[in-house]
């Protein structure tokens, strides 16, 4: 299943004004893996994600998604493989009804109208918002918007899901519902987040970024057990594994 592998080799990126954002990032993610990318604000998480679907072009190094080395010619194929869920659902949901938004991707794939509606139905059902089909996005709650945003990507049947802060701005219940939905997905998942408790629930592997480079890459529980590393990377141990008598009983 080589076409589900995400491989980044010595990726470097400088902003147009020459500020370095990524200083040589390398990793390899296998089919079905669920990987968290954590780090302080400005550590380079979002910049890294934008390379994974070819929105940014590396200053140096390479990105390989499955069989495709990311270039100008393969960018459309890469975007078909990698589903990207952006941080602000208001940016992601640009069409005027939920249906049209979720249909946007499949229509661009050139599917027939009946295939498109089948895909839309299925994607909306997967995230449990089929009843919102006709609603305009501005009349949805934050949690509903997030789910529709995920559906808008699922409808393209991507192999790899890339998510930027999927739990940001959600109330506790919407957050836990989102986590249970994501747990059912069998896609390769790459999640950039500050929500380390969610990482414990969702990701077996964690990549820590600090000032544009990877400072650690390993099993989640191992990383979160390393107090020194977390302190250097401006992170705090998730409440759940802090040994709190109340919280730890729940997990």
């Amino acid at each position, binding site marked *: 299943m080589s076409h589900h592998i995400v491989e980044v080799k010595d990726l470097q990126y400088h902003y147009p004004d020459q500020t370095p954002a990524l200083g040589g990032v390398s990793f390899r993610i296998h089919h079905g893996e669920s990987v968290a990318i954590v780090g302080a604000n400005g550590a380079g998480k979002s910049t890294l994600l934008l390379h994974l679907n070819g929105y940014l072009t590396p200053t140096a190094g390479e990105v390989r998604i499955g069989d495709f080395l990311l270039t100008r010619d393969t960018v459309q194929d890469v975007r078909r493989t990698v589903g990207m869920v952006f941080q602000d659902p208001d*940016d992601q*949901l*640009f069409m005027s009804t939920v249906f*049209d938004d979720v*249909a946007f991707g499949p*229509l*661009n794939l050139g599917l027939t109208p009946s295939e498109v509606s089948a895909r839309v139905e299925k994607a909306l059902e997967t995230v449990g918002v089929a009843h919102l089909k006709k609603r305009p996005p501005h009349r949805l709650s934050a949690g509903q918007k997030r789910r529709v945003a995920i559906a808008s990507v699922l409808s393209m049947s991507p192999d790899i899901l890339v998510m930027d802060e999927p739990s940001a701005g959600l109330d506790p219940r919407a957050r836990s519902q989102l986590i249970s939905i994501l747990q059912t997905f069998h896609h390769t998942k790459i999640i950039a987040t500050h929500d380390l408790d969610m990482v414990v629930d969702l990701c077996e592997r964690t990549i820590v970024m600090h000032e544009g480079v990877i400072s650690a890459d390993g099993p989640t529980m191992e990383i979160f057990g390393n107090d020194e590393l977390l302190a250097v990377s401006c992170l705090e141990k998730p409440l759940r594994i802090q040994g709190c008598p109340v919280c730890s009983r729940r997990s």
Partner: protein
Amino acid sequence: MSAKIDRVLYEIGHMDSLAEADTPLHRLDPRANLLTTAVFIVCVVSFGRYEIARLLPFFLYPAVLIGLGDLPLGFLLRKLLIVSPFVIFIGIFNPWLDRTVLLQLGALDISGGWLSFISLLLRFSLTVGAALVLIASTGFTTICMGLEKLGAPRIFAVQLLLLYRYLFILLDQATRMIRAHALRSFTRRGRITLRVFLQMLGNLLLRTIDRAQRIHMAMLSRGFTGEIRIVRQFRFGPKEFFFMFGFSGLFILLRLTDAVSLLGHLALGGIR
């Protein structure tokens, strides 16, 4: 001031929710509504400037639609009132400038100016009323798609849809800016000076441009290549046919013949 934005947001939202209802009128193909409204407006404005009597039957159409679509009359009338000043401002000159007596009702002499002023107000209520009823019974999104099906350029229809989508977000951002300003301006009762205004606008504009870039990113990552495609099947069936040709026929009939006088004669004759 933020009350103004709140009102705008409320009104758009309210019109929007009206359009979500499911009545026989709402189920019509939008093309039928659009074309019928067009015929209606052209017929109404094509009457002579002193016409009053023959405009009255045209109120039948908004009335029937308000009934069919179960629309709130009071809300629509209030909206009508809000936009009336310009027409009244222009029209109020008519009674001044045109004082020839054209109609006598008993001892009352009515000048051409008053007749044309009343006629103007009737036209205004009819045309604006029809537009409000159209949007309340069809919904903006559906209207845009109907326009596209009727031959409007796709890119323009998409522009309307996207504008509508981001209107709410931008209005919300503007509200938050005004609120933040009001909370920290103590001396001038929240009034905004030109210097502050320019910075507010500039900041809002920068955020907007950044947002456009993120939206573009989101579009690209879902396979956007310059063309936005929308599937929407509309069916112009017998109902639409009946609605459109029935009403349009009636409007044209009312325009070309003087049915009201006929009816009036009959009624007056009956009384005597």
